[in-house]
């Protein structure tokens, strides 16, 4: 499995792009980046900004703070000069700004966690790559029938073993197993997040570690 490395920062010539699909991708990314920059400028400097862009597919995207329509009307001269700055208005603005601050914080934390998970994913990939695997770790396509049947039975045995160990634990803790609810029963409520629909305990990537479980799931190679 080769690691996909993106091209990185490149100098781009300032002419209309030739490749249509690259153009579409560029539009999506740059439009999002543009709105992000505008959002930051609003927060950092208290500016009021409206941006309107038409997509290659003739759809229109717009960003506006506080909102597109009032700013457009104001610009086109169709309404009264800037709204009053009385106390009531200031309260509304302050409230809105506080909400935005909170959202920004939430977003930043989320992106941090995402980055950590991505890094974790890469280290897992490294481990797999470096591993001197047994024959059963090869892709299934490479196994002959006897190996396949052998592997099948070994897996079935392992599955039984898992079930057995789980039953033992279950008896200690009086829980139903396999789970008929999604996610780990060990996830404390504060860390609980929704799990994927595939039944994996993905709602709490760090929860197990947080509880101090002794699960050493990453093998030492």
């Amino acid at each position, binding site marked *: 499995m080769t690691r996909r490395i993106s091209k990185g920062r490149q100098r*781009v010539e*300032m*002419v*209309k792009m030739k490749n249509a699909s690259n153009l579409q991708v560029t*539009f999506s990314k*740059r439009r999002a980046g*543009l*709105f992000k920059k505008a959002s*930051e*400028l609003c927060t*950092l*400097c208290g*500016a*009021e900004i*409206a941006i*309107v*862009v*038409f997509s290659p597919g003739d759809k*229109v*995207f*717009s*960003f*506006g*703070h506080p909102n*597109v329509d009032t*700013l*457009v009307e104001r*610009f*086109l001269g169709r309404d009264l000069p800037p709204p009053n700055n009385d106390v009531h208005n200031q309260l509304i603005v302050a409230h809105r700004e506080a909400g*935005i601050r909170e959202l*920004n914080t939430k977003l*930043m934390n989320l992106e941090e966690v*995402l980055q950590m998970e991505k890094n*974790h*994913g890469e280290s*897992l*990939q490294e481990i797999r790559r470096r591993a001197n*695997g047994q*024959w*059963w770790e090869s892709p*299934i396509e490479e196994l*002959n029938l006897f*190996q396949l049947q052998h*592997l*099948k039975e070994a897996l*079935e*045995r*392992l599955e*039984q073993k*898992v079930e057995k160990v789980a039953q033992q634990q279950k008896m200690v803790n009086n829980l139903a*197993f*396999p*789970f008929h609810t999604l996610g780990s029963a*060990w996830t404390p409520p504060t860390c609980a997040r929704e799990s994927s629909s*595939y*039944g*994996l305990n*993905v709602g709490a990537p760090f929860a197990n570690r947080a509880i101090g*479980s002794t699960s*050493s799931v990453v093998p030492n190679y």
Partner: protein
Amino acid sequence: MTRKKVKLAFITNDSARKATFKKRKKGLMKKVSELSTLCGIEACAIIYSPYDTSPEVWPNTMGAQRVLAEFKRMPEMEQSKKMVNQESFIRQRIAKASEQLKKQSKENREKEMTEVMYQGLTGKGLQNLNLGDLNDLGWVIDQNLKEVYKRIEAVKKGASTSSSSSAAAAAAAASQAVAPPMEQKPAVVELGLDPMQRTQTEWFTDWMNSNTSDQHIGYGHADEMILPNFNDNHNANVWPNNFYP
């Protein structure tokens, strides 16, 4: 390029704020221009600041008016479909980041548990795993089993439909040929699942590893393989189907 990460909050220092505004406004205008040129699309940007009563506009007042006129001409629904303010824009980004996190976490979890599964096949104990781990391990094993079943069926089908009926004959002969050696080892030969049978396991896995160079479909080396004598009281579908959609 800044060296330090800027905190996303209103800059209280007046001169710092003004300086930042000037720089970033310039950068924003540049970005709009680039977007318009690179993608060949119409756009406009209007910036009102506390420093000026009249707004700063890209490309210019006339150009912006043109773009806005076209914008206003569109049906109300089309206008608002992709319209965002700061709040909704950030919410969108949060939603996207959450999705990515969910996906990445699931991938990582699957990878982790696959490693555990491989170790489990060599006989490493499952004692360190809690219920959540066991649950996910079971899921991964189940996924792998499904693929193995599928593959076995495909291979069998391929063997019966292929012109090499000699392969089938070879398989039959091979299973007979390996039967005698099997009797010398009455104990069940597992993939090292029982640590008590360590030496046997080591022999077996080493021996299996010597085959890694010939990992292709075929019955050619059937004479080297042993089909172990497992008990047949297993139940493949331990995990309820409603749990793994």
